[in-house]
């Protein structure tokens, strides 16, 4: 991977960069928490951070409700999802040796979508319910986990198919695209045949959205994020070696196939769990790692964490834009990230030649 010409990697910029990033993050978070159809005064945010607001009544109670039950879980989930997708992207771009790789490529979005659609079609209207002791719940409660499992199954299939070629980048990409397009075609076919009654709900999910996500989703995703954070220090060094190319890496004593496989598993876990919560949000994993690389160079010890931070910021900012569309109808976060991502993608692709 060549470092770009406009690099800001020199260490004297680093404090400034960190400061700028912090300011950006604060601004994005504050705007997301305070702006919206219900405007929330900063005072309410400040107070409710420190004290219980249950005693409050009237407009403050509404503001606190909106803040804590709608915007806060949405914000946190956005941060986690963005961070995970970007880190998965950074890992994949190293392993697949291609700056255009993304978790889409491993069939994760396709697999998650397929299970989500099946669940929507056959679990709504209480056709399927789970009984846990005397507590009856709709199978829809399982959506985050089911979609995650779908993504992981698809990634497993891609690994299985490309394992015969020793998990080479080329084979992985081609198998991944094949599996992804078959899965997407199946999703399309199933929706066309049986989706009439659920099309609106499914469309929203397939676009990748943070709409209506509550604390349950945050708690469901948190363990994966923690796992990712714990693995970061372990992954960084082997990934640095993998960047050098297969031969150099193995001459330096790295078991290339093992670490390649392991990295792919970690990337799949991060991406699949994120996609499971919010649906296929595109381009985050594609967009962020090259920016991080331009800022701090290709040393994964710095690039990987920075990717996480930038990805979190990107998703939160995109969600802010999507929510502030004119009218009451919001734009899903996945649509915004795709629209933002494409010009950048073109830039990377052109530069690569």
């Amino acid at each position, binding site marked *: 991977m060549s470092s770009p010409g406009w690099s800001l990697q020199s260490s004297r910029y680093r404090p400034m960069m960190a400061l700028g990033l912090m300011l950006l993050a604060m601004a994005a978070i504050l705007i997301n928490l305070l702006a*919206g*159809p*219900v405007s929330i005064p900063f005072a309410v945010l400040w107070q409710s951070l420190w004290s219980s607001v249950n005693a409050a009544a009237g407009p403050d109670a*509404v503001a606190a*409700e*909106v803040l804590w*039950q*709608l915007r806060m879980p949405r914000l946190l989930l956005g941060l986690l999802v963005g961070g995970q997708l970007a880190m998965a992207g950074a890992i994949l771009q190293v392993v697949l040796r291609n700056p255009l790789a993304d978790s889409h490529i491993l069939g994760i979005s396709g697999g998650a979508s397929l299970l989500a659609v099946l669940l*929507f079609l056959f679990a*709504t*209207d209480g*056709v399927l319910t789970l009984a846990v002791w005397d507590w009856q719940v*709709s199978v*829809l409660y399982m*959506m985050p986990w089911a979609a995650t499992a779908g993504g992981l199954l698809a990634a497993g299939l891609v690994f299985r198919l490309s394992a015969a070629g020793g998990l080479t980048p080329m084979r992985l990409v081609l198998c991944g695209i094949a599996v992804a397009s078959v899965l997407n075609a199946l999703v399309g076919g199933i929706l066309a045949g049986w989706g*009439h*009654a*659920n099309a*609106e*709900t499914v469309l*929203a*999910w397939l676009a990748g959205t943070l*709409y*209506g996500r*509550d604390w*349950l989703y945050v708690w469901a995703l948190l363990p994966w994020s923690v796992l990712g954070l714990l693995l970061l220090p372990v992954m960084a060094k082997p990934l640095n070696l993998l960047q050098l190319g297969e031969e150099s890496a193995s001459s330096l004593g790295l078991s290339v196939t093992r670490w390649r496989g392991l990295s792919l598993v970690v990337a799949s876990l991060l991406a699949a769990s994120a996609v499971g919560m919010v649906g296929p949000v595109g381009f985050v994993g594609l967009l962020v790692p090259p920016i991080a690389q331009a800022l701090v160079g290709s040393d994964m010890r710095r690039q990987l964490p920075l990717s996480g931070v930038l990805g979190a910021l990107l998703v939160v900012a995109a969600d802010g834009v999507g929510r502030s569309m004119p*009218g*009451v*109808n*919001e734009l899903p976060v996945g649509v915004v990230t795709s629209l933002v991502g494409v010009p950048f993608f073109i830039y990377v692709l052109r530069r690569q030649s």
Partner: protein
Amino acid sequence: MWVTVPQNVERVAAISTFAADILVALGVPPVAASTFADQPLPLYLGDRVSGATSLGPRAKTNLELLTAVQPDLIVAIRRYTEPYERQYERLAPYLAFNVISYRDSLRAVRQVSRALGLEQEGERLNREFVAEVERLGQAAPGGVRAALLVSSSETPFAYYDNFLPAYLLNRLNGVNVVGSAPREAGQSLGYRISLEELLVLDPDVLFVFPSIQQQAYRNNPIWPYLKAVRTGRVYEVGQHWKEGAGPIARRYILKEMAHLLYPETFPAPAMPELIRSHSLETL
């Protein structure tokens, strides 16, 4: 679905048109409602809803605006709100219904009225509708075969008997040529019918649901061969037919359908021009 509803409910939010319709009919107009086709609110319900807050489409209700109106009760369509069930339940008691069939409509009216403490009013609305269906059915001469088509694509989607307007068609001594769903359970509303089959079934009357764009299936070479087209009996119906479970909408559907099936027996009903059907294929 056991929901405890507070004593005097005043602020009710309606997610989906049937809910707003029931609330208006019961005399408790909604403080907030979802969109109706391209309108911000179901305006066919008149002045009683025009002051409500528009919450956006039923499948993506704006939850912040919903929180801000501070509802005491939420009446919603189940199919589109169920994935976000917890968000609704947190705000207020949440009543969700599937509204496909005639029985669904009666049940929704009964349960909403019970939740509002207006049980007798709800029973009266249902009783009157059942009686009217009965009365028009007895007066209807019969012998008319019809189909209900929706879609703007090359292939229309035809509704089964379990869909409320199709049920009313049968009760008016008409025949829904598409017949009943292969299995009773589930939410199968209908299927994509080939024009070949439509020609074989050859209904006398076609009820065509409105769509943003002109229906592409009307350009098929088969279309002019259909009896309903040849005799000029193709009607584009109002948007309320899609989800007509509300007491106001279902009466409009019943009366207008009776008129369109048997124009000599039943006069054109009084109804808002906004949702009145019109003939598509003039002779």
